């Protein structure tokens, strides 16, 4: 589909691309990655002739692109940039139609394109088509940026760090969306990034560049297993295959700073304790230190007046797990149960602590990325 043959480019004395040769197959998602100044963006821009190489040839579908009119060439290749670059004077609809309009599609065709395109990203036509870019969030803007590149159904789409300016959450969502669109529409995508996570999660093939040279071309798995260069392994950091997530148990997620009380205590005293420790629930145990249930402030508010001790208000059905149970079991109970935290018990039914979503996330992060967090 795209074929580089001995492509070189330099500005003055500095060599930007050093005799590059590689091929990109049709329908493949190729990611160009490397440190700043490695030539990845330059490589990308030679494909739609925003930059002309000094030496070498680039073929698209077997045709030498230096022989194709560059303006016509660009209309057949989608292009998404990091700064998004939606035209501020045009509505969403007009922005999507930029290339179809240049190609002189008729009105019905363009209207149909806008409708199908917006549908692809779940942005209702009536709500969004007539908005201006400045009225959209960053994520929505870049969705439209992607749609603009796809509108005239180019077989190839170039993306230059398209999600670099987005917050991590939006970035993940858009990565998934673009990957889904790429598979659905069977596009050949060339994608530049300096984020290895992004490369690993999106690419069919990663081309790792440094100082104008290609260090390795491989699938994400191959690259994880056999990085060809120390620089690549550094780039991948701790993500290499052999560091599997260690098996964790409830103990690893435990928060031990819990507030407990005895089942025979008075209601007023318990409220006092909650207020002092700034919590809304207490773990309740009996005189033998055996766990009996939980006591929540809302329950006290509702029925507290009628009782002297807390005993009748204790909820014995709170979700629990044992300290040596496996992490996935606990996680499942935490995420799918009705309670916002788990009570963790020792095997002798005394209280060990609790697991909240926060403590879970923290422990998982520690396990994956080390104790640096």
């Amino acid at each position, binding site marked *: 589909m795209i074929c580089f043959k001995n492509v070189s480019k330099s500005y003055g004395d500095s060599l930007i691309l050093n005799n590059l040769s590689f091929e990109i197959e049709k329908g493949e998602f190729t990611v160009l990655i490397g440190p700043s100044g490695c030539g990845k963006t330059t490589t990308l821009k030679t494909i739609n002739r*925003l930059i002309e190489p000094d030496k070498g040839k680039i073929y698209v579908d077997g045709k030498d692109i230096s022989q194709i009119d560059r303006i016509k060439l660009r209309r057949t290749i989608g292009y998404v940039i990091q700064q998004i670059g*939606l*035209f*501020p*004077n045009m*509505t969403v609809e007009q922005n999507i139609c930029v290339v179809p309009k240049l190609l002189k599609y008729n009105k019905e065709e363009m209207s149909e394109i806008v409708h199908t395109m917006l549908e692809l990203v779940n942005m209702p036509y009536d709500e969004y088509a007539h908005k201006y870019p400045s009225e959209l969030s960053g994520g929505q803007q870049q969705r439209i940026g992607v749609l603009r590149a796809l509108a005239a159904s180019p077989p190839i789409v170039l993306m230059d760090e398209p999600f670099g300016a987005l917050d991590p959450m939006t970035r993940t969502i858009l990565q998934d969306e673009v990957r889904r669109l790429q598979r659905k529409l069977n596009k050949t995508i060339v994608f530049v990034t300096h984020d290895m996570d992004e490369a690993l999660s999106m690419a069919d093939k990663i081309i790792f560049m440094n100082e104008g040279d290609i260090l390795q071309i491989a699938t994400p798995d191959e690259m994880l297993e056999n990085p060809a260069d120390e620089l690549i392994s550094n780039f991948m950091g701790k993500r290499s295959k052999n560091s599997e997530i260690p098996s964790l148990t409830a103990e690893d997620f435990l928060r031990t700073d819990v507030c407990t009380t005895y089942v025979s205590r008075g209601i007023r005293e318990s409220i006092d304790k909650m207020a002092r420790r700034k919590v809304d629930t207490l773990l309740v145990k009996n005189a033998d230190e055996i766990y009996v249930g939980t006591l929540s402030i809302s329950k006290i508010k509702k029925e507290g007046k009628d009782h002297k001790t807390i005993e009748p208000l204790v909820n014995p059905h709170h979700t629990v797990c044992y300290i040596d149970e496996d992490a996935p079991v606990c996680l499942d109970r935490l995420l799918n149960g009705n309670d916002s935290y788990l009570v963790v018990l020792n095997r002798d039914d005394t209280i060990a602590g609790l697991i909240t979503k926060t403590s879970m996330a923290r422990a998982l992060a520690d396990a994956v990325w080390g104790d640096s967090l």
Partner: protein
Amino acid sequence: MKQFLSLYGDRMIRAVYTHFIYVIISISIAFVIAVLLGILLSRIPAWATVVIPLLSVFQTIPGIVFIGILFLYMGMIPATAVIALSIYAIFPILKNTYVGIIEVQPQYKEAARGCGMSPLQTLLRVEIPSALPSIISGLRISTVYTVSWAVLTAMIGLGGLGELIYAGVSSNNNALIFAGAIPAALMAIFFSWLIDLLRKRLIPKSLRRDGK
């Protein structure tokens, strides 16, 4: 008041009309020249670094001097007034057009190029629309100034509201001065309003800096 109007009413209407025509013609000519020149300079920024400072120095020559000099060469014809006013009106529009286009953020130009727009298409569909707020604010400055500069045309006997003002000053007649000055002020406000209307028509809300 009634007496005043019966005495000067005709003269006032004629003066307002002449003044108005001078402003409209001069601004139209200036606008076309300034926008074309501004676009040209934005294509060749190297020239702009010479041309724009030169013009801004010229702009500091008092209007009265320039009209006087032009009068010596061209005589007492309306064209003298129109040329003088046009030349003065060019600079604010030219500068705002040039700056407006130059300041279009590079990502829009890059996106336009990447989408396959020719340089002309980029200019017409992206650069000029993005520069429009700046161009129109240049137009407003020029127009308001031209309304006041056009007072000077009376100095060389070419009519307009200045005629009433000069006559009032020389005969110590305050009413006559007001009869010239107030319509001139109203005319400036009217043009300003007209341009505001144009701005609202032409520029999408999102591009207007004040969001109105």
